[in-house]
């Protein structure tokens, strides 16, 4: 633990546009995931589990639901006298507006960066669910003497619009960064997690802003592979990139595999989330559950198969929920039949209603809808 010598910076909105209706009223950071989490829980927990006690959370738009979720940051132990969670919304100066890219956003929090005393900063996005050992990454960064260390994963490049870097490395050092490439097959791709010294970060951001640049990876890292020592840190564990609605569904459904859960919900590095104090889940007579991940506070009297149920979901008698993601507080009436759906929060499905998507296209049901 290197308490207080590393600063965390989390982008709440990078990748908002990829999740369609899921992010129409929330930023990607507060998209519900895995039965009881919001995506930001992974970023915050990763940082906190590395002993980081000061985190700046950069918000852009649609952040009311995120504010509601993080509150005073008690749930992550970030309600601190020294450090803790700093929420950094846009409009920091009278002349500034909503930022246009990460560089602009980092420039907008210049004051926060300048006043911080930590030697290093860890920057991460909120559109990836992963449990990564940031403490180890920082240690390797310091030991190697690199200027920048970026986390990467070896595997199929997720869907992207030029916002995910693919890398080539030699002896741990990144010697080439590609973006906007049509990559086929496996490669090493960036996870949006960067370790860098705070002072270097500020100077790189200043230079980029002076040149009217906006993107951190494209405008700061890519042109500097030779001037800076950029190292790679391979993450071998599970990575779920929320690159599309389908990607979101797949990322949730893969949690039904024990190996994925064991990695993502690592007992040594727990994933913390806002506590709701709901009672344990109650299974009634006639309940029939197979292969499902179920959060607390549910009342289940029907059939649930291959599904993810968030907190406080009610499944009535004789109802059948198959291959669905059902978010918090949704109530499914008795005899209803749901297949291949992503059902947002607080939806009411009447008795004996039937709704069906397909394995390749999960139909999305909007928050608060009555079916």
């Amino acid at each position: 633990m290197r308490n207080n010598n590393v600063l965390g910076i989390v982008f709440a909105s990078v990748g908002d546009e990829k999740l369609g209706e899921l992010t129409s009223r929330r930023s990607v950071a507060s998209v519900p995931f895995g039965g009881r989490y919001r995506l930001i829980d992974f970023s915050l927990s990763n940082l906190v589990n590395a002993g980081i006690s000061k985190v700046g959370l950069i918000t852009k738009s649609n952040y009311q639901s995120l504010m509601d979720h993080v509150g005073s940051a008690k749930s992550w132990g970030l309600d601190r006298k020294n450090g803790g969670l700093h929420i950094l919304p846009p409009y920091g100066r009278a002349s500034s507006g909503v930022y246009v890219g990460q560089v602009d956003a980092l420039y907008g929090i210049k004051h926060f960066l300048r006043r911080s005393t930590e030697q290093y900063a860890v920057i991460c996005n909120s559109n990836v669910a992963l449990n990564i050992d940031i403490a180890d990454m920082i240690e390797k960064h310091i030991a190697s003497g690199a200027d920048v260390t970026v986390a990467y994963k070896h595997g199929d490049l997720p869907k992207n619009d030029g916002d995910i870097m693919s890398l080539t490395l030699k002896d741990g050092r990144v010697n080439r960064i590609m973006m906007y490439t049509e990559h086929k097959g496996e490669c090493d791709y960036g996870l949006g997690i960067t370790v860098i010294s705070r002072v270097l970060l500020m100077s790189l951001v200043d230079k980029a802003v002076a040149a009217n640049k906006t993107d951190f990876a494209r405008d700061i890292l890519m042109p500097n592979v030779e001037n800076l020592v950029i190292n790679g840190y391979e993450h071998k564990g599970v990575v779920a990139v929320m690159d599309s609605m389908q990607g979101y569904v797949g990322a949730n459904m893969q949690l039904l595999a024990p190996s994925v859960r064991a990695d993502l919900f690592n007992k040594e590095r727990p994933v913390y989330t806002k506590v709701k104090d709901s009672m344990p889940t109650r299974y009634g007579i006639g309940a029939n559950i197979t292969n499902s991940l179920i959060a607390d506070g549910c009342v289940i009297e029907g059939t649930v198969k291959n599904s993810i149920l968030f907190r406080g979901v009610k499944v009535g008698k004789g109802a059948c929920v198959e291959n669905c993601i059902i978010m918090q507080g949704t109530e499914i009436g008795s005899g209803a039949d749901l297949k291949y759906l992503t059902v947002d929060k607080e939806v009411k499905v009447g008795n004996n209603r039937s709704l069906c998507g397909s394995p390749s296209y999960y139909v999305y049901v909007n928050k608060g809808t009555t079916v």
Partner: protein
Amino acid sequence: MKKTECVAMLLAGGQGSRLGVLTQNVAKPAVPYGGKYRIIDFPLSNCANSGIDTVGVLTQYQPLELNDYIGSGKTWDLDRLEGGVHVLPPYQKSTGSDWYKGTANAIYQNIGFIERYDPEYVLVLSGDHIYKMDYSKMIKQHKATGSDCTIAVLNVTLEEAKRFGIMNANPDGTIYEFEEKPAQPKSTLASMGIYVFTWAKLKKYLCEDAEKEGSSNDFGKDVIPAMLAGGEKMYVFRFDDYWKDVGTVESLWDANLDLLNPNIDLNLADPGWKIYSKNEGLPPQYISADAKIENSLISEGCEVCGNVDFSILFSNVTVEKDAKVMYSLIMPGAKIESGATVKYAIVAENAVIKSGAVVGESPEECADLDAWGIAVIGDGLTVNKNATVSAKKMVTEDVKEGAKI
């Protein structure tokens, strides 16, 4: 310090010896309940929900787990700018040091703590019961009647009355007599161990009681009778919702399974009166394709691949394939391996039931019904392969492979 109208004092030092192995390493208020709670969550949540923000928790017996659990009081929203929750163990004074000799003595030794807040009233609670109660209503009645002591009472049956402290009250609610476990009860109003005192009066009686030779320094046995004899104004406060003492293995088991009974009115899901508990940051529960679950309560972090019927699984419990759990409480972190059977039993925290082992018996299987009871496996113990633990057995050490006890 600002004046606080009412300070709550929670008596949490009791050993709860009737719970046997379940309280070997923890105080009774720290015993798990209801899948994700501990008994002390009930009085503390009631305090928070009733608007009482200054609580002293008197600990004595095995306080480690309890102290850790209470922490800063965050869990119950009792980490306050003023007041909040305070753990009060016995301490050394210039005149010597003493354990808490009785419930009244525990409060007596902490007069200094109470006086810091200069309260009008003191609410005395115990950490032994499962109930939801709005203490502010009781305090309101105490004020309205101008009472010196108000005692919460529950209407029990005449038969049950013989096991409780019984308040004999006039129709206007004033108490004229108190009888501890009467053979011939005159009334059925049982004391719930919840008192509101006008602090000035209580202080006087506590000091007198401390001076008295031979006093057991107990509220029920000494202070309440002394106040009655002294002609103080004492009222009952009637309570008629769910309340259960969880002092014995059977009553603890019963009170847990009450949560599965739709006819019993103990709603822990009421958003207006939440029962808070400490959260461990666990993932949702996973129910596999081989599992069969009916009429049960299951908590976070559980992995269930076997059969669970009419049972409560606390957090992080594993039930492997072909294991059977019926009419049982499986406390946090316990593991029931494949092919094991657990019925009519309480398996304490982190215990392991190895494959093929059988713990507990149903009343029907038990030859002698009088000898039937709930089997209990102590925390951290292992019941090895193919061992059998009979009904009502309280297991305090590992059970060897194939053994029958």
